[in-house]
């Protein structure tokens, strides 16, 4: 407990960590402003503007139509055709002002996989950086050896640091997600757009798992940095795995490999299972009678259990390797 308190203090005193934690609050706040602005109700002046535009367009169209009917030869109306019908097709009339009001209203349930996912992704990236920079600084400054001169039990040191990172990032992520959805709730309430309690239940579950994911990402970043002993090396490996690794995986194994890539499993974990395209069965069609055939959609389902197990195994392997390496290797 004493070591945990020390590591929490060390974490709190690290300026880079404080900046990243501030980003965990500020960036979602900006996203929220964007969401509120992007889904704001249509104002009376916007409706009037759209109606004016439609009236102008309709007047221009009517003039073109009248001209077309009056001079069908100028419009290459084929002989024998009724100009009134053909000109209607050429010029078009009767626009609706609602066509020009494309802004969608706030849909709370849909935001779970929209901005809600964006916030969780952002939090996970930032907390992973927190874990990485926290451990990386100890190695870069060489202060790890000094710490071990005071507490030589390396497993305790590793666990205390990991616990500090996990606890801090879990609390911050949970708080930010609670604030986010609280703000969305207030926003929806102010616009009389409340979602069902079922939708809120799904949102709460996703937010809870999102907090766990962000805290887990932080410990994963920490564990990898304790393994590689370098912030840059960890970020390089993460980038390679996230971008090149996934692309190569799918290129070699095809769409079926999507089951094994990180984003799909994260989606399954966050959203209580996920449907994804793996191409299976899309070329298998069956005769359903009356000359009609029905083909497979090529979609597959990945369950929450599978996604959770996948993430736990990855996390466990990284943590075990890191701890083993820290206990065995010489400390510079």
């Amino acid at each position, binding site marked *: 407990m004493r*070591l945990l308190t020390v590591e929490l203090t060390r974490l709190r*005193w690290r300026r880079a960590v404080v900046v990243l934690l501030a980003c965990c609050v500020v960036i979602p706040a900006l996203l929220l402003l964007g969401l509120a602005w992007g889904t704001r109700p249509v104002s009376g002046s916007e409706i009037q503007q759209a109606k004016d535009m439609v009236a102008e367009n309709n007047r221009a169209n009517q003039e073109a139509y009248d001209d077309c009917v009056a001079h069908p030869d100028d419009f290459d109306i084929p002989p024998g055709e009724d100009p009134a019908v053909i000109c209607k097709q050429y010029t078009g009339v009767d626009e609706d002002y609602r066509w020009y009001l494309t802004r969608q209203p706030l849909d709370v349930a849909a935001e779970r996989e929209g901005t809600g996912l964006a916030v969780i992704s952002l939090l996970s990236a930032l907390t992973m950086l927190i874990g990485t920079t926290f451990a990386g600084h100890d190695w870069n400054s060489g202060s790890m050896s000094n710490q071990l*001169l005071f507490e030589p039990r390396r497993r305790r040191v590793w666990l205390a640091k990991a616990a500090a990172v996990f606890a801090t990032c879990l609390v911050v992520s949970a708080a930010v997600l609670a604030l986010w959805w609280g703000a969305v709730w207030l926003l929806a309430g102010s616009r009389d757009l409340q979602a069902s309690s079922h939708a809120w239940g799904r949102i709460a579950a996703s937010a809870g798992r999102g907090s766990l994911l962000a805290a887990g990402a932080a410990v994963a970043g920490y564990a990898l940095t304790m393994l590689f002993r370098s912030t840059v090396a960890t970020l390089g490996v993460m980038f390679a795995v996230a971008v090149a690794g996934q692309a190569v995986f799918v290129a070699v194994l095809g769409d079926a490999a999507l089951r094994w890539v990180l984003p799909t499993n994260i989606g399954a974990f966050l959203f209580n299972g996920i449907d994804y395209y793996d191409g299976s069965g899309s070329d298998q069609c069956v005769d359903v009678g009356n000359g009609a055939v029905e083909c497979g959609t090529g979609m597959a389902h990945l369950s929450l259990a599978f996604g959770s197990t996948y993430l736990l195994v990855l996390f466990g392997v990284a943590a075990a390797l890191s701890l083993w390496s820290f206990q065995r290797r010489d*400390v510079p």
Partner: protein
Amino acid sequence: MSDLVIETHGLNKTFRTRQGAVRVAVRDLDLAVPGGGVHGFLGPNGSGKTTTIRMLLGLSRPTGGTMRLFGTEVPRHLPDVMPRIGAVVESPKFSPMFTGRQNLLLLARSIGEPDARVDEALETVSLSGRDGDRYKAYSLGMKQRLAIAATLLKQPQLLILDEPTNGLDPAGIREIRETIRDLGARGVTVLLSSHILAEVQQVCDSATIIGHGRMLASGRVEDLIGSSTTYRVGVAEPDEAGRVLRAAGHVVRREGAVLVVDTPEPPDRITRALAEGGIYLSELVPVRADLESVFLELTEESTLGHGADLGARPATGAEEVR
């Protein structure tokens, strides 16, 4: 139960280089540091001093051999004895963005020492006025002093200091040496690894000299120096005097008009032998050997592949085996 504070037996450490070669850093090192006083740990660069210290402190794993601190086997039971040990290994290593005080607070709290202990330690090394500055803004001397302050947080019974006066100004060096002597006089065992031979000679009661990972000599500093005491002897008949002294068992060589006598015996043996031969002295000057000459002699012999006196072992120099 041994009275030795530090003991190693057959300690070995080998590294594998990136090219695949095996580099021997420490070979069959037997080190014995008794409790109390200041013990010098001397050796040229790359001789294995820091590697030995790092192994003792659990930062590096030995390839072979055994180590004991306060009679307790380490690294297995290192946590049991670590609260009694303060150490500075190589250059001071702290978080550069934290203040000196913050760095010490974290270390003190990790061992359950009250924050007031930090103030005392900072006061001891005269850093109280600058404890709020970031570590990265410290001069090298201030960093060294902070590192020493960190060792004092534990109120150690064994202090292991690796080049502690590096980068200090003359006043700082004197302060640190006085602190080390004072700690030694108060019963703290200090292992002082240093390249500065005069420092070891001034500060240490005993010393161990290593070269190429092997122990070359160990003992009280006076004994290490005294074993090769030399005298300049001026006489009217140097050839006859040389014959008399050789017959008495002394090692003698002639340098111009004077004789140079190497002997472990006290000087009155020289005067008596000459007087008994009817030769009278005009000059008898002890040319005191210093630790530097002993050190250079031993390490040179180590490099050349010869064993040295004073308990030295045959040395073959650093070995690299592919």
